[in-house]
Each structure stands twice: as C-alpha cells, then as structure tokens.
C-alpha cells in the first residue's frame, strides 16, 4: 500500500463554512477533518452523504466525494451507494430532525440491515435551519416558536432507537470534547457494518447550553458516565458513583459505592444481546443527567453489502452472466423459429 501522507488540511474545501459563529458543528468538522488521515483511505474513496438541515451542509466542507441530498433520505441513498460500491468508505451526516423525524424509517432500516455506513447524528435537540422549532429529541414542555405553551411529545433517545433496531455499533460523544469525539469516530470507522454515532452538539442560537451539564467543569463529572469496554462503570468527581445491577436485574445509579462493591457493572460493549446497552441508554434523564458517553455496543455481524456481493458472486460462479447467457435468457424455455 502506498503512503497516502494525507493531512487534515487535505480534507478542507475552498468553500466558505456558513454555520453560525459559535456553532458546535465547527468543532465536529475540525475533529472529522483531523481524524480523516487516520482512516488510511484515499480521499477519492471516501463519500459523505447528508440530508437537509444545518448539519447536512457538512459534505460541502469535506474534500471528498459528497452529496447533499433531500430531507431524511441520506441513509437510503448511502445504502444504494454502499451496496453497489463496497470498495468505498461511506459516511452519513444527519441531525436529530433529519434522522429521527422525516428520515426515521430509513435510519432504522439501515441499522437493521447492517449496511456498511458510518452515520454521524448531530443532536442539538432543536430545528435550527428552520429557525427554532422543537425536534424529536427536545425535552417535553419545550417552549419554541411552534410550541408556545410547551411541546407535548415524548422525545426519542437516539441511542435507544438505534439499539431497538439492533444496530451493531452505537456510540455517543460530545462536540466540544475533541479527544473523546475522535476516539469514538475511530471506533466507528473500525467497525464493519452500520455505526451510529450520536454527537451532542450545541446550537448556540436556538438551544444554547443544551448540554452544559456535560460540559461545565463543576457538573460534567457528576453527570457523565464514561464507558470503556471491560472497565467498571464508575463516575463522579471522586469516582464514588457507579452503574449498579439491582437485585431484580435492572441497572441503576448508586452514590457512595465502595471500591469492592460487587453490584458495580463492568461495561461489555460486545454483548450480543442489545438489552444491556439499551438499559444503559435508559439511565439518562430528559435533561441529559447521567449520560453514558462512549461506545454502547460494538458487535460483528455480516454486512448487508458483503452478503449481497456474495450472492452475486455465487450466482456468477454457477453460470457466468455473459452475452451467451443473455441470449439464452431472452429465448426462454419455449422459443420457436420461422424460416
């Protein structure tokens, strides 16, 4: 393999980045561009596909192949590209409205099929590009332009949704934590199959501070549960909090947990059954307190792309599809000839 010798700047385009000053998307863009050289994939073999929304402008700023498509459909478009071109590294960039409202159907079906896609879901819990309506991840009672007396609908937890669809890789990270963001991107890129990465992203115009509890120095350690495979799920400023298993089998948060408390749960990202990861995802409150961050689940399953290619190879190995075969196909079983 030839040395690609790519630098982050190689992934920048000549297009002016047009997000609002202070938007969390800038940090994510910088992290992705910074991480891309690590992929070891030539720029021409990388494709970014997005839907509609602030986050979906992302492909214009990546010097790879890219498509800014229509609202909610990026996973479907990427599925067609990835299954027909398994040689490519295909990334989807989407937001909470794009992926979970208008495109919810495509998201869950991409996840259940395990198409080889990396889906980056920027969750700012608001509609930004349409100027501030509540989104499917907004907390109940959200006062917005379209909900002057507060929103009524129960929000989706994107990680729970993905795990409900039995996604083979689900991670969560934060726009402002470059190191953690990069580590989760790396794990997602290494995963063979659909990877969903939820990125908590601040919209400083319409939903500023949505994730401050996880960012401010005085609160973040108390509310963030860092997940490392094989490590006990301990957190808190002094490590005294932990995820514990209750006698009925449910997961819960406990304070002042002794160092040798046998109830403390050790994280298992490779558990075949998604129930454990799902239970972890349910620990969070609506305002993001007790947010597990990192990789919830990472299991190896055959990818849809590879299985489809295998079927084609198997059929062609049995009888190649050449012109003679096409002639025979057209003739069918009962042709007749007129002289």
């Amino acid at each position, binding site marked *: 393999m030839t040395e690609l010798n790519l630098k982050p700047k190689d992934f920048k*385009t000549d*297009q002016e980045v047009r997000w609002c000053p202070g938007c969390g998307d800038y940090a994510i863009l910088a992290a992705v561009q910074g991480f891309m050289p690590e992929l070891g994939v*030539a*720029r*021409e*073999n*990388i*494709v970014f*596909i997005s839907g509609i929304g602030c986050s979906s402008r992302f*492909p*214009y700023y*990546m*010097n*790879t*192949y*890219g*498509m*800014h*498509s*229509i609202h909610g*459909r990026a996973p*479907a*478009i*990427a*599925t*067609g*590209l*990835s*299954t*027909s*071109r398994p*040689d*490519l590294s295909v990334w989807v960039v989407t937001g909470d409205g794009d992926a979970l409202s208008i495109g919810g*159907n*495509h998201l869950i*079906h991409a996840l259940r099929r395990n198409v080889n896609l990396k889906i980056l879901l920027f969750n700012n819990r608001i509609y930004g590009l349409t100027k501030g309506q509540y989104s499917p991840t907004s907390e109940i009672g959200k006062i917005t332009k379209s909900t002057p007396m507060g929103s009524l609908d129960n929000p989706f937890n994107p990680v729970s949704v993905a795990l409900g669809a039995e996604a083979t890789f689900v991670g969560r990270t934060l726009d402002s934590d470059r190191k953690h963001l990069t580590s989760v991107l790396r794990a997602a890129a290494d995963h063979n199959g659909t990877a969903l990465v939820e990125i908590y992203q601040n919209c400083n115009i319409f939903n500023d501070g949505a994730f401050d509890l996880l960012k401010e120095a005085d609160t973040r350690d108390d509310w963030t549960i860092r997940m490392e495979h094989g490590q006990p799920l301990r957190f808190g400023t002094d490590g005294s909090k932990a995820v514990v298993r209750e006698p009925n089998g449910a997961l819960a948060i406990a304070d002042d947990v002794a160092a040798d408390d046998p109830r403390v749960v050790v994280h298992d990202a490779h558990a075949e059954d998604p129930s454990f990861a799902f239970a972890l995802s349910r620990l969070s409150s609506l305002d993001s307190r007790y947010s597990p961050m990192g990789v919830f689940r990472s299991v190896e399953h055959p990818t849809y792309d590879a299985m*489809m290619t295998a*079927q*084609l190879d*198997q*059929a*062609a190995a*049995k*009888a*190649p*599809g050449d*012109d003679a*075969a*096409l*002639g025979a*196909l*057209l*003739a*069918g079983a*009962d*042709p*007749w*000839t*007129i*002289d």
Partner: protein
Amino acid sequence: MSKNVQQLHRVVIRIAGDSGDGMQLTGDRFTQETALFGNDLATFPNFPAEIRAPQGTLAGVSSFQLHFADYDILTPGDRPDVLVAMNPAALKANVGDLPKGGTLIVDTHDFTDRALTRVGWASNPIEDGSLEGFTVHALDMTQLTLDALAGSELSRKDAGRSKNMFALGLLSWMYSRPTEGTLAFVRQKFANKPDIAEANVTAFKAGWNFGETTEAFAVSYEIKPAVQAPGTYRNISGNLALAYGLIAASRRSGLPLFLGAYPITPASDILHELSKHKRFGVRTFQAEDEIAGIGAALGASFGGALAVTTSSGPGIALKGEAIGLAVSLELPLVVCDIQRGGPSTGLPTKTEQSDLLQAMYGRNGEAPVPIVAAQSPGDCFDAALEAARIALTYRTPVFLLSDGYLANGSEPWQLPSVADLPDLTVAFATEPNGADGQFLPYLRDVETLARPWAVPGTPGLEHRLGGIEKADKTGNISYDPDNHDFMVRTRQAKVDGIARSLPPLVVDDPDRDARVLVLGWGSTYGPIGAACRRVRASGASIAQLHLRHVNPFPNDLGEILTRYEKVVIPEMNLGQLATLIRARYLVDAISVTQVRGLPFKAEELAEMLQGVIAHD
C-alpha cells in the same frame, strides 16, 4: 369416431372463474401452446386486487382472454367468441360481453340455489332460457374431474381443484392445440407433489377425451399458424420484456444494474424477475419504502451503476422529491411507472394511462424529465433500452411508462440478437476538465449539454453535489438570480435537445390521402391500430401515429399534425396527451377518453373514427 374439423382465421377465448381457481395459470398454458403452434396472439389477464376474494362472488371473478389468429393481430379482442365460466359468478360477470351466437361452456357444478342467490339470480340461467342465442355446453366439469380421479388418493377437495385442467384439456381439443408442453409443465410445477401432478395430467386428458368422444362437441377447430417474419420467437409479457430490457441495457452499457424498489401492483413482477438474475451482476434492493427505493437507486447511480426504480402511480407520487433531486444532480436514473387506475389506491390490478401528467409535471420547481412510453408487451424491451440510452447519454432521470395492460398481457416477440442491440457504452470522467487541474462537475458537453459523470474512486475528481441550486460549471452552492435563471433554462434545454437524437416519426397512412390522424401513446397502440384496420377495410382512409417519446416531443411532430384536417387522440385518461398537444402546438385535437380500467375496444374506436371522418 372421426369428427368434423372446421377452419377458422381467428378466435377469442375467455376463461373465467374464482380467483384461486387457477384461471390465470390455465390461460398462460393455453397461450404458451398457441404461441408454440405458431399463431399470432395477444392476451388480457383481468383479475381482482384481492388474493382470495370470497368464493363465488362477483368481486372474486378472475378471467383470462386470449385472441389468436392465422394473421397478425393487435389486441386481445373486444369480445370473446367462446366463454368458459367455471361458476355462476363468472358467468354473470362475463356473459354480457359474449355476442349472440357465441359459444358458452359452463361448469354446472356450482349452480346451486344458494350460489345463484349469492350473485343475485332468482332462477338458473341455464334452465330459464336466458342463455338463448348462445351455443351452450352445460356440463359438470367438477364432477367429471372427480370421476376421472376416482382411483386417486386425493381428498375430494384437492381432486376438484384440478377442474381447471379439465377445462384446459377440453379447450386444447377444441382448438387442436399441442399438449406435450402443458403436460411437461404440470409435471415440473408439481415435481415435489407427484400425486397432484398426476391428478392434473389425468384431469387434462379427461377434458381432452371428453371433447374427442362426446357427441355434444361435434366440431373441433383449426387455426393455421400465422405468417410471421423469419426469425426466432417467444411469448413474452410486458413486465418480463421490461426486466430483460434493463438487463440488456446493463450488458450493453457495461454498467452493473441496480434496482431499488418497493413492492406494488402491477410493477412487482419486475423486481421478482430481476432478483433472479444476479449472475448478470444485477443488484435488487427491496427497500423499506418507495422513497428509499429511488434513494438507493440514486446513490447507486452516483457510484456509477445503471440505476432503476420501479413502481406504479401511488409510489411515483412518493418518489417525486427524489426525482427532482435526480434532475438537480443530473445523474442517470430510469424510473419505471407501471400505471394503474387512480387516483389514490384506485384500481390496483386494472389498467389506465393517467400518470402522464404526473410524469411530466409532478415535481416542485421546473424539473423536466424525459418520458419514454412502451406500446406493446414485447415493445417494453426496446422501450427500456431507449430509456437507459437517454438516461445515460444525458445524465438525467427518465420516465419509462408502461401500464397494467402491457405488464400482464403477452404476445409473440421476435428475439433480438444481443450483439445487434444498441451500444450504450458510457465514458466516465477520468481527468480534470478545468484550469489548474480543477474539476468542474457542471461543465457541459456542448452537443448534449450533459455534465461529466465522475464516480467516487476517481482520484482528483472529488466533488460535491446537492439539491441546492448550483453555480454553472463549478457546482458550488449559488443563490445568484442570474445563475438560477441560467441553470433552470439550461436543464430544460438539455431535455428539449434530446429530440435531436430521435429518428423521424413514421405515420401509418397506407392510402396516403387520409385527412384524419389518430395520435396515441402507450398501450392504446393495439386497439388504435385494430380500429384503423377496420376503418380502412370499410373503404375510408385514416392515418395512425404512435409516440414512443412523449417528452420531449419529436421535432417533426408539429409539422405532421398540420398535415391533417383533424387529429383524434384516444387515451385511457381524461385527455392528458391532448392537453399537452393543444398547449404545445395549438392544434384543436379531438380528445377521446375512457377510464374503465380496461383497454379500448377496437370496434368502439373504429365507430368513433368513422363518425369523425363522416363529419369531415
């Protein structure tokens, strides 16, 4: 006993029974034998949307009509000469189409008081004289089948299910059809159930022998093979021909075929068929919905595949936004609309050509899409190749319009030579086309106005596409007013320019003095052609022109329209082509319409045309 054999030139047979009685299978087999025998033929399957509608009801009647002849024919026939009715509902639903003097073969087994009441008959029509004027053969085919299978191990119910094969055997005797193919087919179809296979064979032979030995059937008929151009033929339905046309387009373009589709009547058979041909590199993706079907196809097109999505009217409505995206991205995509009765769910299993204006205009913004229409079942093959040619050459989505009548109907089809099919080779962009090694994804070909197709994996040509308006040449986001005006007009000019690649239109005007032109598109080709023959046979002149390309219209269409005093446009909608023709050419076309879910009858069209000529 040697029976009288009478020569006929043509006959139309309709067999009707409960959906689930195997009427379509019976019709298919009779068609296959007829095709092999060398008659020209056309078929018309007609069935309810329900898979197993309640037994014995009018709603559950399924029928199959076959027209075959010793000369070339254009339609499945207006009315049957022979009607086979397997129960009271089938008789009631179809007897109105049987002309006086026609032959009626009725299975009397289910003509019980209860069954008669169920379809609204107070008395038994076989006995009350209401079938006077027909040649009626009333026989208990179910009981005859049961008797023939008396020695078998099958339950009475299972044995009775072979009655369709009894009917097929009887018809095969009546019309001197070869039988080997059907017997082999039955044995293969039920290879895993040898007792069922044998029951069907026995029932078939019993039907044949019944005709041969019973005095009730005094005459059998012979229809000599039709004179056909030298070549090799097969019988083919429209959906099969369309699927084969797509595979052929893939071979001839050298691009892998990708189908993204969601099941919908009457288009699903294309998905089924293509899914069988993975050896040709065909990828079929059964998507979660119509939008994902076209979305995945568009993604595959971006990656360099020959991309196709198939659907019918309701699905096309859902795909509208993605078709607009394809217009904006300028990527090749074939959108097959196998039309059915609308609006909304409409008539899923019935035919209509009412999606023309949806194909033409059913998107936001100025979003021109070329439209190619198939005119007969076999023609779906050529139409698919033509749609692929336009999509690949001009980097555009293309509508391929078929309909339920073409999709399920069949006709003999002369096999093309694979090597003689059009060359659809595509040149992907491989080198930068701008100054300083820059790649300009919207720098157009001067002749076709097509933009370069640069597929991922090509170094140096990395670029971003999107549905937001793009700057000319660079494809970067642009909100510039003049640029938008330019891009809208350029996309339209590209589609309009396709007309320059079309061959001259051929008007069928054998007398060369016609003053009335019948203009059509799509599946009305057969009925219009048959109607024109009737008109000409009566001594009058009439010209026929049928459009393969509905958008853009061929460049010589306008001039042709001016040559005739009257232009008549028959359509299975409320005048959609007529609207387009009037708007474009200011021709006062006479719109003749029908939306009954059924094809036009040649006789009715001919009568209408005679009227137009008479008032000339």
